[in-house]
């Protein structure tokens, strides 16, 4: 049953997201695109773009969107797509809800826990690798169709890294460039 699979997948994603929305993208990519092949690499990149431009945390946005698309791609009607959205969003938030609530209740005990601290500092480099892997996987011929794509990548990199332009502005400019080049 697809809804159970969706729930289980996003529950896992929510539980193993350390290091924020970008790290979550790596998990979603592996589960949804590589393993289940519910969504194409192209479609996935588009969903990240839309999630980043929309209000709210990127992880919640992409879960909502992917929940919808997975059911839609299987050919179900709209109300079921909305149920898919709800399932994925609920499942992705549930683990952090349980864990954070538990921490909130035991707060003072937790702050001093040396194991907790060591796991966190140990995970940090792995998270950097996770996000890097998400980017490497997306550098495929579907997303980079020709040399001009690499020019756009370079320009976006410079504007985000050194000019520190707003990411939404960068995405919009990328869209305008796409329209000018390809239509």
């Amino acid at each position, binding site marked *: 049953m697809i809804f159970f699979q969706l729930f289980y997948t996003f529950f896992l994603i929510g539980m193993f997201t350390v290091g924020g929305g970008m790290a979550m993208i790596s998990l979603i990519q592996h589960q949804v695109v590589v393993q289940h092949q519910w969504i194409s690499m192209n479609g996935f*990149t588009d969903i990240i773009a839309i999630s980043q431009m929309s209000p*709210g945390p990127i992880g919640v946005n992409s879960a909502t969107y992917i929940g919808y698309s997975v059911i839609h791609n299987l050919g179900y009607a709209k109300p079921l797509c909305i149920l898919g959205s709800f399932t994925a969003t609920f499942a992705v938030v549930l683990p952090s809800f349980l864990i*954070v609530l538990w921490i909130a209740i035991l707060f003072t005990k937790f702050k001093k826990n040396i194991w907790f601290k060591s796991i966190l500092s140990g995970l940090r*480099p792995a998270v950097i690798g996770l996000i890097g892997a998400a980017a490497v996987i997306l550098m495929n011929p579907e997303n980079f169709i020709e040399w001009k794509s690499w020019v756009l990548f370079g320009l976006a990199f410079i504007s985000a890294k050194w000019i520190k332009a707003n990411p939404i502005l960068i995405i919009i400019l990328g869209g305008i460039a796409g329209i000018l080049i390809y239509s």
Partner: protein
Amino acid sequence: MYWKIFTSFAKIGAFTIGGGYAMIPLIEREVVTKNHWIDSDEFLDMLAVAQSAPGLLAVNISIFAGYKIKGVKGSIIATIGSVLPSFIFILLVAAFFTNFRDNKIVASAFKGIRPVIVALIVVPMINMAIRSKLTWFTASIAIAALILISFLGVSPIWVLLATALGAVSITWYKGYKQSKKNIK
């Protein structure tokens, strides 16, 4: 009271674009400055926990702050409040965009957007690497994780579990050595 919690967190959810870190000042204003639900020291502690617990920063802060304000019920309401606006917004976009994806102009816009998105993932990764002052050892963990996931197709979950296990055993070993020294 519950309604006030809901609207405060809905406002936070609706007006943040660009992810969790952009949300922090907004949350601080609603929870600390305006409503005095939590004092600023507590807010900083909360931030540290929210950052380190699994899940998304903004959602985690909402869960924690909601609990501080009004217990488990407050936590549920704050979480729903912070997620609901983006949920509705994305639902509308998803319903709308699936019909427009085949539009020629939209399709060419996305051809330009896709490489840009990859750059927007690479840059925070580099910033994170610089901020965490990688040593040779931690850098090799990062590179190993990258290779395992992207080229060998290993699930990120296994990579995280293995690293956590490694971190715990190193801490245990250090503690063990320390206690031996103390006995001598």
